[in-house]
């Protein structure tokens, strides 16, 4: 009975962490869908993506709070509790970035010339890949710490790719002298917003690397 209770307790918190990471991963895919719908001018699909990503953010926040409360209430993993909480906050911040991006599309309605569509799509794909590698690293951090490095190095790779596309895109934007400066700056702002997701994912990966070293036996 004791063993069963123990197992139930472990499964409970592990499942919540898993679900939270599912939400982060899901937010990336929804963001991709949302931007795609925006670029295609499909308002209905965009609105649906916005609603879904808002729901994901809401659930993510709820799960993060529950996990943090559980960790403190049951005094679980005392030596890594601070690190795990920080990691949860960081991953939640990435989720918020995806949501924020779609919200900015909704509020600011940027005019994106068709020649930049592919670059924007590519840029977001790399940012989503960087976050996805982070999600896999996080899962490994909780379940099999030895496997973290298998995913962690990919975050840097996707961030570099994202930097390349971002630079190329910004150059292309400012090369269009026919556009108003304010328009060019608005597009640059969006390119940087997407690129920042990959940058932040890399920062989270760096911190995760330290947490792994701290937990090494």
């Amino acid at each position: 009975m004791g063993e069963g209770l123990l197992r139930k307790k472990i499964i409970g918190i592990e499942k919540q962490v898993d679900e939270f990471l599912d939400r982060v991963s899901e937010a990336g895919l929804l963001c991709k869908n949302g931007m795609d719908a925006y670029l295609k001018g499909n308002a209905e699909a965009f609105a649906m993506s916005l609603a879904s990503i808002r729901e994901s953010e809401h659930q993510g926040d709820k799960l993060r709070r529950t996990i943090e409360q559980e960790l403190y209430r049951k005094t679980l993993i005392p030596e890594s509790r601070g690190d795990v909480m920080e990691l949860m906050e960081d991953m939640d911040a990435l989720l918020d970035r995806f949501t924020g991006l779609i919200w900015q599309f909704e509020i600011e309605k940027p005019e994106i010339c068709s020649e930049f569509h592919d670059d924007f799509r590519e840029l977001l794909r790399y940012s989503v890949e960087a976050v996805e590698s982070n999600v896999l690293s996080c899962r490994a951090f909780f379940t099999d710490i030895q496997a973290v490095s298998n995913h962690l190095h990919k975050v840097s790779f996707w961030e570099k790719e994202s930097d390349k596309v971002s630079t190329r895109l910004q150059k292309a934007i400012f090369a269009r002298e026919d556009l108003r400066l304010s328009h060019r700056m608005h597009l640059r702002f969006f390119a940087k917003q997407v690129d920042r997701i990959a940058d932040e994912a890399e920062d989270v990966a760096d911190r995760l690397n330290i947490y792994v070293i701290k937990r090494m036996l």
Partner: protein
Amino acid sequence: MFAIFLSSGLFLGWSLGANNAADVFGTAVGTRMISFRKAAIYCGIFVILGAVISGAGASRTIGELGAVNAIAGAFVVALAAAVTVYWLTVLGYPASATQAIVGAIIGWDLFAGAMIDYWALEKIVLSWVLSPILAAIFSALLYKLIAYMITHARISMFTLDALTRAGLILAGIAGSYALGANNIANVVGIFVPVSPLADITLLGLFRLSAAQQLFFIGAAAIAVGTFTYGRRVMLTVGEGITEMSPVAALVAVLANALVLFLFASQGLERFLLGFGLPSFPLAPVSSSQTIVGSVIGIALLRGGRGIRWRMLGEITGAWILTPLVAVVISFIALFFLQNVFQQKTFLPVEYRLTAEAENYLKDGGIPTDRLTEMRGKTYPTAAEFEKAVTRYVTLSNREMSLVLSTTEVGPLLMDPRFAYRINDPAITEAQRGAVQRLMGKRFVHRWQLEKALAEESPEWRMETGKKERDREIKRKLDYLFRLIRASMQ
């Protein structure tokens, strides 16, 4: 009067609980794996269970204080040990209660001019040096092994957390049980023969012997000590020496248990000897010292950078000071009790080289030919007798211990009144019968009574090769002598 004398035993129990609970739960509390409150509850419950269940039977564990032959003396010795342990607890250092007690007994020995057990002293000094080093080696090896297993078993973070926590609780519970069972005799053991308590039956189901009731009171004092003052030393052990991970905390308590087991296991000794292998010497190892050694072992394995050397130096200094301080406090307190309060703190013990003792020593391989001038002379104290012996012959500490215990003059009168006080269930009917048959007789030396009992019943007979059985008989004999002494006072 009994209550006043018992109070020092209870104070010793309280100090012991405040200090030694850290040996079993210190690393768990220090790493925040178990809250102090929870640890204190577990510790309290299992200390009491250990004391009442496994500490029961006064003859089974006589405790170090058994050597003190007057109740007022025992009061002072317990008080001196308690004050010493309390002082170290206030400073936050883990201390060995046994060493404090031995120190206090030496103070009594010096005051009473009684025999000092140099053989026991040698063991203590050896255990100071040996036990922390061995514990450090064990914990480092065990840590390597467990780290390898965890890494290769791919255990998830929360599973590892739950398993470590369960391990720490189980190890803590087992340690607390052993703490109660092993130390209760030191806390109240000496008061058992003079206790006015009678056996009671609870709800017609459980029978609590007088000894068990006394053990319960003593264990409750240990539990209260843990609750009220245990946190400080726990934090010293768990985080004061070095920062530890929960796995390291578990390894430290496991290594501690392993070292204590190796040095105390008669079963293991028998097993090794049975295969013609060398066995570990059965020596009194202090769990306070082994737990600190275990913590250091793991820290050294990880490069030793996190060790707070200053704290470690202070702890080591406190270990050396423990028996010395106890000696001084005990001696001064005895002086006051004897001269100011007019209490009898010791019964003078004389020494005489009788013809019987000489033959006995000759059989034991001691060269008595050179002691002819001492024949028949009575020496008022062990110190004077020892001085006289060393004038004629040089003996090792072990040989001197044998000479002193053989020539010690009882006298032991087998008064029928004391027979009624034998209430230990461990003493068999045959053993009781042998005691009865010797009623009315008088013996000069203790060993003569031992011999007479062995002749009366094979159950009192020691046999070579049966160490465990012999130890049990020796404990029962100690109990018997204390009863006889109490009946003669």
